[in-house]
C-alpha cells in the first residue's frame, strides 16, 4: 500500500488531524458528520487551526479502514441525508494512546524550547 499524502495547507503538525478528528468525536456524545467536525474544530481552536476542509474526508476514510470510527447515514439538522461518524471502542483506545504519545512529544519539544 502506497501512502499518499495530500498537501494540507494547514498549521497542523503532520499526523495530528486524525487525532483531532477522533478527539472531536469523543467530546461529542452524538455521532457527527464531516461538516460538523470541521465546524467543531474551527470553533474549539478559535480559528487557529486551519484545516483544508476536504482533507477531512481521506482522514475519515483512513479511520474507517482502521476500524476506529464507524459511519452511518442519518438525517442532518436540516433534514438532509448526511453520513455520521461514531467512535468505536478501538478508536477510543487508539485516541488515548495517540494523545499520550503526543503529550510526551510535546513535553519533549517544550523542554527543548524552554531551557530550565
Amino acid at each position, binding site marked *: *500500500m*502506497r501512502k*499518499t499524502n*495530500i498537501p494540507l*495547507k494547514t498549521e497542523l503538525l503532520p499526523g495530528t488531524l486524525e487525532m483531532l478528528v477522533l478527539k472531536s468525536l469523543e467530546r461529542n456524545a452524538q455521532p457527527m*458528520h*464531516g*461538516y460538523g467536525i*470541521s465546524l467543531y474544530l474551527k470553533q474549539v481552536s478559535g480559528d487557529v487551526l486551519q484545516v*483544508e*476542509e*476536504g*482533507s477531512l*474526508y*481521506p482522514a475519515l*476514510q*483512513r479511520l*474507517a*479502514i*482502521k*476500524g476506529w470510527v464507524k459511519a452511518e*447515514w442519518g438525517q*442532518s439538522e436540516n433534514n*438532509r*441525508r*448526511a*453520513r455520521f461518524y461514531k467512535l468505536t471502542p*478501538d478508536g477510543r483506545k487508539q485516541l488515548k494512546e495517540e494523545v499520550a504519545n503526543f503529550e510526551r512529544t510535546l513535553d519533549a519539544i517544550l523542554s527543548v524550547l524552554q531551557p530550565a
Partner: protein
Amino acid sequence: MFKRILQYWRRLLFYVRRDRFDRELEEEMNFHLEMKARENLAHGLSAEEARYASRRQFGNQTLIHEVSRDLWAFRSWERLAQDLRYGLRILRKHKGFTTVAVLTLALGIGANATIFSAVYAVLLKPLPYSQPDQIYSIGVVIPERREQLGILAPRIHDFLEWRKAGFSEMADMTPAEWNLTGDGEAERVGGARVSANLFSFLGVPVVHGRSFFAEEEVPGKDRVIVISDSLWRRRYGANPKLIGSYIVLNGNPHTVVGIASPSLLVPTGMQLHRMLPFSQRIDVWKPLAPSPRELDGEYWNQGVLVRLKPGEHVERGRQLLQSVHNKFNREMVPDLKTDFLIELAPIREIYSGKLRLGLLLVLGASSLLLLIACANIANLFLARVTSRAGEFAIRIALGAGRSRVVGQLINESIIIAVLSGAIGAIIASFGARILAVYGPEEVRLLAGSNLSLVVILFSAVISLGAGVFSSLIPAWQAYRQGAATGLQEGARMTLGARRSRRFQRILVGVEMALGTALLASSGLLLHSFIKVMNADRGYHIERVLAADLTPSGQRYSNDQQRVGYYRELTQNIRSLPGVQAAGAISDLPASAGTSGASQTIFYDNDTNFMSVVMQRPLALIRSVTPGYFAASGSALRAGRFLKEEDQTPVAVISESLARRLWPAESPANVIGRTFRQGDVTGPLISILGIVEDARPGSVDQELWPQIYRPHQQWPSGRMTLVVNTFQEPTTLAAAVRAEIKQMDPNVPIIAMRTMREIVSASVAERRFQLILTSLFAFVALLLGAAGVYGVISYSVNCRTREIGLRIALGAARSDVMRWVFSDGMRPVLIGSVIGLGGAVLIAQTLRSVLFGIAPTDPLSLGSVGIILLLTSALACYFPAHRAARVDPMVALRHE
C-alpha cells in the same frame, strides 16, 4: 492479526461496493459544500461567491476523492492488473513475436513435462504397495562367480530357510506358465507360483474371494489359483460365479479362489531379475508348493521380496539375513568354502533400474532443449528491447519508474510463459499418452495416461521459471538503457543497441553450444544404435520367423512324445514352399538373453565337485533340434552340427566356451573332447562341433558360454520354432500357423514374430532414448537456426544504412555477404566447439549407453559439426543475401 484481517475484509467489501462508495463519498462531500455555501451565504456573500468560496476552502475535490479511494484500494494489485492488461495489448499487437515465442517455449515445456511425467511415474511416484520403501528384493552373490553371474536370484530352499529363521515378512514368486483350456480357445497364460502371503505382503488384497492359505503351500493342496482382473473380464466376462469353480490348467482342474485387484502391480518380463523370465502378462497365481525335485535341485529361480521393519536400516537387515544364511548354508554344505553374499535392492529398482539412466538422459536432453528455447526467447526480447527503446524512453520521461518499465518486460515474458505453459501442458498430455502406450515397458506399467497433478505443477513451475529466466538479460538491458538513449535520433545505432547486439551474439553462442551438445549426444546414440542393429549376433536376423510353442497335456506327457512332436513339426514346416530351413531351440538367444537353464561344465578328469566347482565355467544349456543351426544361420567354426542319428551324449559348444575350457587349443583340436555338465558324476558328453557365439538381441548384455544339446538328449517342452524363409518371413506366417494348427490344434502358439521384430523389441529402450533425444536435438537445431537467423537479420536491419554507405563507397556485394557471414558464424563456431567439448564430456558419463564407439567417435561428432555448420550457414544466407541487395540510395534515406 485479527484486526489486520478485518481491515482487509473491509477493503474487500469496498471492492464489491465500489460504485456505492463513490456515490456516497460524492454525496457526503456535496453535503459539506452545500452547508459551507449556506454558511458563506449567511456571512453576506452572493450565491455564486458563496459556492466558489466553499469550493476553495474545501480543496481539490477530485483529488480528495481519488486519494480516499486509493486508501481503500489494493493499489499494487491494481497496478499489476494494469501492467498485465498493457502487456496483453502489446503482445496482441505483435502477433508474430508472440506466436513464435509462445510456441518455442511451449515446445520446450511440453517436452520437459512429457519426459517428467515418465520420470515421475518410474522414479518418483510411490509404488502401489503398502509402505513400498520397506520392500527389498533379495539377491545372492557367489563371490568367486560375481564376474560372470552377477547377482543371482535365490533358490527355493534359501527362501524356505530364511522364512523358517523368522523372516516372516517375506514373499516369494517364481515364473510359471500354463495352458488354459475349456471355456473357449486354448491359450497360454503367464503367471507365477507364489508364497501364500504374497497379496497381504504387498498390501494389495484380492478384491473378490480370498487369497491363499499357508497350508496350500503343499503339493497336492496347491490346486487353487487367484486370477487377474483382466483375465477374469476377458475370458469369463467378470462372472462372479467363477470364484469357487474349476478351470483347467495344463489339463488339471484348479479352483479359482480369488480375483486379484485390478491395480495390482507385479513384475513382468525380466524386471525382477534378469534370469527370471516372467510373462509379459501375469494372469494366474498359484501357491508355491515345491516338489521334492525342486527342493533338491540347484535352481536359482526365485524372486524373493523382504519387508524390513519400519525404520530399519538396509544394511542392518542385510546383515541379519546374511548371518542366518551363513548358518544354514554351513550346516547344509559343510565343505563349501565360500560364503554366499546377500544383497538387498529396493523394490523400486525392479521397475526403474534398467530405465533410470535412459530416462535421466532423455530428461537432460529435454532440459537442454528448454534452455535453448529460453535463450531464443531472451534473444527475441533483447531485439525488442532495443527496438522499443523509444517507447520505454517516453514512458520513463512521462514519469514511469525504471523498475516499472523493467517490471513491464518481465510481466510480458510471464504472460508468454503462462500461455506456453498451458500449451506445453496440452502437448505433454498427448506426449504422456503416447509414452504410456509406446514407451518402454516400465513406463507403460507405471504411468497412467493422464497427467498427474505433480506433472502439471512441474510444468507450471518450469514455465514461470523459464519466463523469468528468459527475461532477465533483456530486463537488465532495458534497465541500463534507461531514458537517455531512446529519445535520440537514430536510436538503433546507439551504444545500448550495440551492447544488446553483443548479448544477442553471446546468447546465440550459448544456444549453439547447448544445441551442439544435444545434437552430438543424439549422434552418438544414433551411431551406437546402428552399430547395435548391425552387430553380428551369431544368427540371421533377416528372413527368419520364430514361433513359441508349448505342447502339453495328455498327448505330450512324456519327453518322447514332445521330442516326436518337434521332429515331425520341423519336418513338415521344412517341406512348405518358401521355407529354406526349420528347427527349434529351447531358449531363443535373441529373446532369452541369459535366462534358461545353466550348469557348471566340468572337465572329464574332475573328480571332487566341491574343490573345483567355483573354478569351472558356467554355461547356458540350450536344447536344439538338428535343423536349428541351418535355420538360425549360425556359423560352424569346427566339427559338425547335430544329426537326428546322434545317440551317445553329444553337444555343440560355443566358441567362447571352447576358448574358456581349452585356451591353448585351436577349435579343430577341441572336437571329440569330452566334458560333464552339472556334476562330476554325470555322463561324459563329447563335443561334435563348435559354433559361433550367439548374443542376446540387445547385444550389450554380457556374453555367456553356451552348450547346445540334441533335443532327444535334453528334452524341453517349451521350444521356439525357427523358420528360415526365402522371402519376407511374414508372407509365410499364415502357412506356418496353419501347419502348426493342422498338426495339433490344441498346441497354442504363444507368439509368432520375425527375428527382426524380436531384435527390435530387445533394443526398445535404446530406441526410446534415441528417438526422444533425436527429436529434441532436431527441434534444438531448428531453434538454433531460428536464433541465428533472427539475430543476423536484425543486425542487418539495424545496419542497413551502414551497409548502404559502404556499398556507395565501393564495397563489393561479395564483401557485404562475407561481413554478414563472418558476423553470424563467429558465435556459431565458438558455440559449436564448446558444445562438442561438452558432448564428449556428456558421452563419458554415458559410456554404458554407447555401443561399439568411443565417446569421441569422429564420425558422429564430425557429421554433427557439418550439419550444424550447414544449417547455420543457411540461416545466415538469407539475411546476407538481403544485405548484399541493399540499394545504397534507399538505405541512405533509411530512418
